């Protein structure tokens, strides 16, 4: 299990190269990568604020829960903070399990958690000004299904 909250870019290839490898009980590896998207055509960058200390602890705790619930062989969460340009990866999650359903469900659960319970806040820097991103009810609903 690896949790990292960092401002530096992460290397997806390096992170996934050894993830879930060298074990004969891993049949399924799922990864999710979140990327800065520009829906308005007006976005210059995203700024991610977080709560140092709480962020790592909270993600670590929920990832341990996911490991136990879906009997994961391994799990990885990397989340960036700071200023990110359109097209840059914001975060990634990886899960390794015996079966595909467990690997998919655990990755989705971690994503739903990160969207609505991990202490991150996004601010959009647009050519026309700046604005904090509002929380979506859909993200809260997504978490409640677990």
């Amino acid at each position, binding site marked *: 299990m690896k949790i990292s909250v960092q401002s530096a870019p992460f290397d997806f290839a390096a992170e996934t190269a050894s993830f879930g490898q060298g074990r004969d009980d891993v049949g399924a590896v799922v990864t999710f990568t*979140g990327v800065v998207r520009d829906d308005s055509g007006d976005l210059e960058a995203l700024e991610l604020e977080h*709560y140092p200390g709480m962020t790592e602890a909270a993600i670590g705790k929920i990832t341990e829960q996911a490991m136990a619930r879906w009997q994961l062989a391994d799990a990885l969460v990397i989340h960036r903070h700071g200023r990110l340009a359109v097209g840059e990866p914001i*975060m990634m999650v990886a899960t390794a399990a015996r079966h595909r359903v467990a690997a998919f469900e655990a990755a989705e659960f971690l994503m739903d958690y990160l*969207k609505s319970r991990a202490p991150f*806040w996004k601010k959009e820097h647009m050519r026309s000004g700046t604005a*904090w991103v509002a929380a979506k009810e859909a993200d809260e609903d997504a978490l409640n299904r677990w």
Partner: protein
Amino acid sequence: MVEVLYFAWVRERIGLAREQVETEAKTVADLVAELSAREPRYEAAFADTSALRVALDQELSEFSDPLAGVREVAFFPPMTGG
């Protein structure tokens, strides 16, 4: 004495990232009432607590929770990570 932290637009509205607060407040709601009474910028930040979240010693908590033994209180809007 508790350490009070503010994040995102709560931080911007109050104009502070953190401060030490001398308080006898029994609950988070009591602390919010004390802070709101200080200055308009606090009042503005805490105007609608249904739009806010609170963490006590880095655990998500409720506004009705007691403050006894708590060292760090953080106020922030709903999270928007991922």
